[in-house]
């Protein structure tokens, strides 16, 4: 049973336009959410995170929105650049319910930014 779902396996956008990557979760105990970016043959690289007490967090071209009632979050990249082409993973943790902050990941979305 997938607790974190990234239902679109791929997304292609034109350079300069907005990329919107979606993520849904089912476990209501999740309180902290992260996005990781992964290039081939490399480990995931942390991009941005958001706590459940917020509905938006922004860092440069990257903004994450959280709708806790809908159990939905999205990552917006504006403007998209060819170097953003990678696999993006949504991850969640329940840091206040257990002894550690292990992450539960979605399957990832492959983003392609066309020049």
């Amino acid at each position, binding site marked *: 049973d997938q607790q*974190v779902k*990234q239902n679109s396996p791929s997304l292609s956008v034109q350079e300069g336009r907005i990329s919107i990557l979606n993520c849904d979760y089912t476990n209501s105990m999740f*309180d*902290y959410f*992260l996005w*990781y970016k992964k290039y081939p*043959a*490399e*480990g*995931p*690289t*942390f991009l941005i*995170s958001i*706590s459940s007490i917020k509905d938006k967090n922004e860092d440069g071209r990257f903004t994450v929105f959280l709708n806790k009632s809908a159990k939905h979050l999205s990552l917006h990249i504006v403007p998209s650049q060819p170097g953003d082409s990678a696999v993006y*993973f949504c*991850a969640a*943790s329940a*840091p*206040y319910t*257990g*002894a*550690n*902050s*292990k*992450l*539960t*990941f*979605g*399957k*990832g979305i492959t983003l392609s930014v066309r020049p």
Partner: protein
Amino acid sequence: GAGVSQSPRYKVAKRGQDVALRCDPISGHVSLFWYQQALGQGPEFLTYFQNEAQLDKSGLPSDRFFAERPEGSVSTLKIQRTQQEDSAVYLCASSLAGTGEETQYFGPGTRLLVL
């Protein structure tokens, strides 16, 4: 070093062989996590250490999997009598404390292929 390192980067094993995968976390990071990433999937949690104590091993798929961190820094994930279904990328991550809203930093992974 500046980041999490893992060795070997690639490992080919014959079915039934034992393998050992090494992780060097970021210096000073108390917490260390192991994840398994199958092809086309997101990383899945295997086990968690706080210093030398293995506090959560709920994700280990069988008793053939064993992890240790004897001195609270370097960790080794050992797989005994490898099976073809063990073929995956094994990722190690470390964080400062491992609790609360923390970022985990990942190594490049070890790609294991069992023939």
